C-alpha cells in the first residue's frame, strides 16, 4: 500500500538546515492500523505530510499503491489526495463559515461527483459518525469531539483507502478521545488503512502496529495485539 525507501527530508531556511527525516524506511500494508509515536520534533508530522502528498521529499523513493509519486504534477497530487487519502487533523480544520453538510461536501466537490451522489455520501458519512441530525449546524456549535467526528466524516465521505491522522485526539479530553479512537478502529476494521500520529501511549497500544520515530528515523517497530477491540464492542 505504502512503501518508503531511504526517504530524506531537509528543510532549508536562510541559515539553518534541518534534516527532518533521515533514510526513513517504512512499509505499510493494506488494512494496517499503524500508530506513530516519538518525541516532539522527531519528524512524525513530516512523515505524515510526505505520505499524504502534502509535502515533497528531498531524496529517496516513495511508492503509493505501487506508483512512484516523485514526478507527479500538482494537479495529479491533488487528485490522488482527493481520491485515495483522507486527512484528520489535530485541530479538526473544519471550515468555520460552512455548516457540517457543506464541510463534508468540500472534498466531494473537488472530486466532481453529481449532486445526488454527494448528498448520499454526505448523509451516509454523517450518519456513520452519529451527527446526521446536526447537518445544518456550524462547527462552532459542536464540542471538540463532535467536530473531530465531522472531520472524520469528511475524510471518509470520499471512501479513501488510506486515512492519515496527526494527533487526532490531541485536542480532546480522554472521554472524547476514546470515542474518536473507537470510531477509527471501526473504520479500520471495515478495511481502511490508517496511520495515526499520537503522543498517547495508551492509544498507540490499541493499534495493530507501532513505529517509534527518533531523530527522523524509525528506532523501534512493533506489532501489537489490538486489545481495545473487545472492550469496544
Amino acid at each position: 500500500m505504502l512503501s518508503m525507501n531511504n526517504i530524506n527530508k531537509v528543510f532549508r531556511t536562510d541559515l539553518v538546515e534541518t534534516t527532518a527525516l533521515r533514510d526513513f524506511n517504512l512499509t505499510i500494508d493494506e488494512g494496517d492500523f499503524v500508530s506513530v509515536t516519538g518525541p516532539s520534533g522527531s519528524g512524525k508530522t513530516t512523515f505524515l505530510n510526505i505520505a499524504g502528498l502534502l509535502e515533497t521529499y528531498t531524496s529517496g523513493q516513495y511508492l503509493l499503491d505501487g506508483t512512484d509519486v516523485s514526478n507527479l504534477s500538482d494537479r495529479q497530487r491533488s487528485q490522488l489526495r482527493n481520491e485515495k487519502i483522507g486527512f484528520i487533523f489535530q485541530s479538526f480544520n473544519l471550515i468555520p463559515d460552512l455548516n457540517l453538510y457543506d464541510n463534508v461536501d468540500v472534498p466531494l466537490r473537488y472530486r466532481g461527483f453529481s449532486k445526488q451522489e454527494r448528498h448520499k455520501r454526505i448523509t451516509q458519512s454523517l450518519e456513520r459518525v452519529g451527527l446526521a441530525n446536526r447537518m445544518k449546524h456550524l462547527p462552532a456549535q459542536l464540542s471538540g469531539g463532535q467536530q473531530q467526528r465531522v472531520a472524520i466524516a469528511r475524510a471518509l465521505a470520499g471512501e479513501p483507502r488510506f486515512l492519515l491522522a496527526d494527533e487526532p485526539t490531541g485536542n480532546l479530553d480522554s472521554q472524547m478521545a476514546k470515542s474518536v479512537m473507537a470510531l477509527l478502529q471501526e473504520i479500520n476494521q471495515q478495511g481502511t488503512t490508517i496511520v495515526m500520529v499520537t503522543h498517547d501511549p495508551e492509544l498507540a497500544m490499541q493499534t495493530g502496529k507501532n513505529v517509534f520515530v527518533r531523530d527522523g528515523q524509525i528506532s523501534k517497530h512493533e506489532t501489537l495485539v489490538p486489545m481495545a477491540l473487545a472492550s469496544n464492542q
Partner: protein
Amino acid sequence: MKTNLEFGPICRALLRNKVGAVLIALQIALTMTIVVNAIFIIVERQGLMQRESGIDEANSFYLTSTGFGKDFEPKRIIDQDLDVIRNTPGVVDAIQINAIPISGGGWSMSLTTEPGDDQDDVSTAVYFVDTHGIDALDLEVVAGDNFASTDIRWRERNQPDWPDKAMITKALAEKLFPDIPWQSVVGKTVYIGEDEPVIVTGIVDKLQAPWIGWSELENAMLSPEKMVTESTRYFIRTEPGQRDRLMAELENTLANAYGNRLIRNVTTVTQTREQSYRQHSAMIKILSTVMVLLTLITAMGIVGLTSFNVNRRRKQIGTRRALGASKQAIVRYFMLENVIISTTGILLGVAMTIGLNMLLIEWFAMTALDWYYIPAGMAVLFVVGQLAVLGPALKAAATPPAIATRTV
C-alpha cells in the same frame, strides 16, 4: 473529471461574513453609477466639442483696429485696410465683420416668414460681410448666388433698417421653411424685426452662431454690409501654415498704412475655440480623473479585501488543498467569490446608475443615458473585479497544503 462550481457554499459562507463583502459591493455599485454617468457626460461633451463651426479654424485669425484723429475716415480707411490685407501674400481673403463665430459675442435677430408681431419667429445670428465673406469664412454657396458688389451697403452708426437681401445657412432655411426643400428657399421673402422684408438670395452650407451653448447654434444669416465705425474687426483667412507669420506681419502692415490707430486682440480662431469650450474640456478632465481614481480605489479595495481574506483563511486554504483542491480550484474559489460580490454590486449599480441619470435629467436638463452604456459599464466593472482579484487569488493558490498540519 467534472468540477463542481462552489456557488452555493461560497454564497452561504459570504452571508456569514457580510460586512466586507457588502462594503465592496456598495463601492462597486457607486463606482459604476459614477463612472457610467461620467463617461456619458464626457462623450456628450466631446460630441459638442467636435461640432464644426464651418469656418477654416486652423488658418484664420482676427484683430480689432481702433482709429483716432481728425483725419480718420472710417469708410476710406476700412476699404484701404481690406485692400492692403487682401493683397498681402499668404492671405486667402479678409473681411470686416461684426462678430466671430463660436466666440461668445455677437448679434442676433428674429426672422418670420410672414409679417406681423404675432408670427412664430426663428432666431438667427447675423454677420455683416461683403462679397468676400464666402471665401474669408470658407463657406460654400450651395443654392442661389453670392452677393454682388452692388449689393453691399455701408451701415451707419445706429442705422435701424436692413438691406433687402441676405444669405442664410441651410440649417436656418430648413427651420424657416420646414415644408419645402431648402434649395427652394432661394427667392423667398422673410421678415426681420417683425415686418421688414428681406429676400433670401443664397444658401450657404454651414456657419455657426457665436454662442456655443445656444440651441440655434446652426442658424446664421449673412447681411451684405460694411459698418462705419472707428473700432472695426477684421477677419483674415490665410493659406495653410501662414497664419502665425501673418498675425505679426499684418499688425505692422496696418500700422504703416495708417499710423494713428490701436490694434488689439489679435486672436486665432483656434484660441477662440479653446476659450469657448474651456468649461467643457475642464469638465472632461475632472470627470476622467474622478473616474480613473474611483475605479482604482475600487480595484484596490477588492485587492485589499481579498488579500485580507486570503491571509485570514490560510489554514482553510491549506486544508482545502489537503482535501484535494488543485491550485486552479483555489484561484477559481476567489474568482467566483468576486463574481458573486461584483454581480451584487453591479446589479445595484444598474439601478443607481439609472437613478443618478434621472436626477441629472431633472436637475441639469441632461439627456437620457443611451442603453448600451449600462451593459458596457457592467462589463468594465466585472472585468476590473476579476483582474483585481487575480493577484490575491494566485497568492492563495500558492499556499502550501502542509499548512493544514503545521498550524494549530
